[in-house]
């Protein structure tokens, strides 16, 4: 397996830019997840890596080899499509063996490789079936098997779990994670689901409108989001973000959320900042704290989501462990540790 490097990569469809100045380095054996809302360019970036689209400007390297002029077939990159793209007239074994057949491997060698791949993906019993006779999860495994059969340098996965139901998605996520560890393969994975990104990735690349917003490990993105977009995108329910006026009367700028709570906003320019609090970092208190009125309560069993309006923000959410007795219309207070606040400047970047 090999690493990948993208330098100043741009892609335009006609005059319309879809990928803007992407610099990214993916290490050998790393699992990197591209995540972002639909239309952010994550799938296009994957297709550029695969060679299914040409880059407009910039450089793309596979290991030590410049690859942006290489044909897709010459890159030795395999891809699992969202639709699986299994050949409907071929059996499972023929699907998996297809790239090997094209590579003109001897028949015995193909059978051997297909059997090995089938075993690692538990597909042996299905070898003689056609894709139409398989369930969604089985098709998914066949697609992965076909991609792995020829030992590609890099494995690309384009929203591979989005056609599966919730239970199966969880199972396949674990399976993919296991597979990645077992193969130590370089993988690039595209999803719009931040939970998939958080659970699978060694590193996450968050994209918006063709630009990379932040690259980091899941926990870095969670605990130190680079801007408001990343802060709101990672985490579920999403971070409560509200704007607050700066008070410069005491010299250093501070924001006042209640009579007792004043937060230092050192380095902030202008008259306002954005403050963010994750729902899971809000602890209910009887007196004091940030006060609000409960507008709705959702019981999830393991925890309770409390929706509230307050002086500093409307439509806030707090996540309380376990089953809470809070009722709609109640006046409620929350305590938040000072280090759990995220402050962003007026332009959205982290302070």
């Amino acid at each position, binding site marked *: 397996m090999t690493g990948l490097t993208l330098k100043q990569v741009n892609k335009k469809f006609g005059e319309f830019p879809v990928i803007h100045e992407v610099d990214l380095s993916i290490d050998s054996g790393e699992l990197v997840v591209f995540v972002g809302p639909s239309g952010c360019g994550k799938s296009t970036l994957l297709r550029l890596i*695969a*060679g*299914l689209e040409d880059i407009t400007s910039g450089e793309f390297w596979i290991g030590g080899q410049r690859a942006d002029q290489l044909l*897709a*077939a010459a890159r030795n*990159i*395999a*891809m699992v*499509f*969202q*639709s699986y*793209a299994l*050949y*409907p*007239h071929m059996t499972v074994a023929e699907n998996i063996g*297809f*790239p090997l057949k*094209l*590579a003109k491997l001897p028949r015995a060698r193909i059978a051997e490789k297909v059997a090995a791949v089938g075993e690692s993906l538990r597909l042996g019993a299905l070898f003689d079936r056609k894709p139409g006779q398989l369930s969604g999860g089985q098709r998914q495994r066949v697609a992965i098997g*076909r991609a792995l059969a*020829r030992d590609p340098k890099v494995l690309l996965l384009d929203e591979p779990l989005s056609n599966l139901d919730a239970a199966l998605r969880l199972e396949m996520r674990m399976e993919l994670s296991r597979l990645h560890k077992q193969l130590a393969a370089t993988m690039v994975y595209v999803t719009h689901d931040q939970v998939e990104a958080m659970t699978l990735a060694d590193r996450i690349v968050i994209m918006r409108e063709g630009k990379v917003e932040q690259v980091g490990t899941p926990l870095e993105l969670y605990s130190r989001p680079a801007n408001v977009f990343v802060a709101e995108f990672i985490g579920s329910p999403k971070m409560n973000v509200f704007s607050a006026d700066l008070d410069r009367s005491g010299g250093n700028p501070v924001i006042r959320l209640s009579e007792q709570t004043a937060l230092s906003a050192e380095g902030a320019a202008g008259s306002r900042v954005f403050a963010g609090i994750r729902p899971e970092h809000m602890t209910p208190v009887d007196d004091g704290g940030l006060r609000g009125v409960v507008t709705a309560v959702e019981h999830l069993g393991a925890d309770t989501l409390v929706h509230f309006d307050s002086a500093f923000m409307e439509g806030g959410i707090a996540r309380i462990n376990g089953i809470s007795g809070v009722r709609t219309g109640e006046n409620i207070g929350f305590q938040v540790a000072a280090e759990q606040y995220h402050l962003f400047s007026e332009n959205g970047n982290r302070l």
Partner: protein
Amino acid sequence: MTQMSKTTVAWYLLAPMMIIIVGVAGYPLIKTVYFSFTAAHLVSPDTSDQWVGLTNFLKALGNAKFRSSIGNTVYFVVFSVSAEILLGVLVALLLNQEFHGRTLLRALVILPLALPTVVNAMMWRLIYGPDFGALNALLTQVGLLAEYRSWLGDPSSALTMVALADIWKNFPLVALITLAALQTISRDHLEAALLDGANAWQRFWHVVFPAIVAPVSVALVLRTIEAFKVFDIIYVMTRGGPASSTKTVSFHVYQEAFAYMRVGSGASYALIVVLISAALIAVYLKLLQRQGETA
């Protein structure tokens, strides 16, 4: 009201249509079968009950002109249908590419199909014309032909020229069916094959061809049945001539029954043609069934 069973209701609802079908198809068919065993002749009414047994069929099978009309028909079917399939698939592959003016070209390709057969036949008769025909003009002007010839007047070329006119009119049907099938192929399959290392030919052979083979074989059988029955284009262009060189089985039946007015013998020819058509239709149904199973 008493409760009628579902089956009874179904029979009541089907009855009007069945009466019509029996009236316009069933009765004439039975009458044709009846005539085929008689010496019926249009101008002598008393012949219609002269029972002759299998004589008509034995005569028909022994008739050299009928056998040569079968030969003509087979040539017409094989030549026109294979050219239509080849041309249709190639044109469909072309029209499935993205290029400027594709929509216009797709519309233009359908035009020959929309033309009535008689109009098509008259048009090609003009094109082939021995005195002022466009084909002669074109071929002599580019130097491929020394002097004007009578394409439809020459027994060695007439049937081929009629078949060419038929190909021009009917290949768009094959193109249309193939194009529809091509559009069901997902881009993902082609891209997956590309990443699997398939070149253009391998992508066609392993991805495109399996997706179009069933619809194209349906087109093949449909066109074969139609071509086997060919009548109108021949009636307008050559009337079976010159020297019976374009006489097909349908034309032979028509002449026997309506030109020579030998209804009994004509009926036996017609039944032989029906049997051959039935065999082709059986193949068609089998293919449809197979396509249903793979879909």
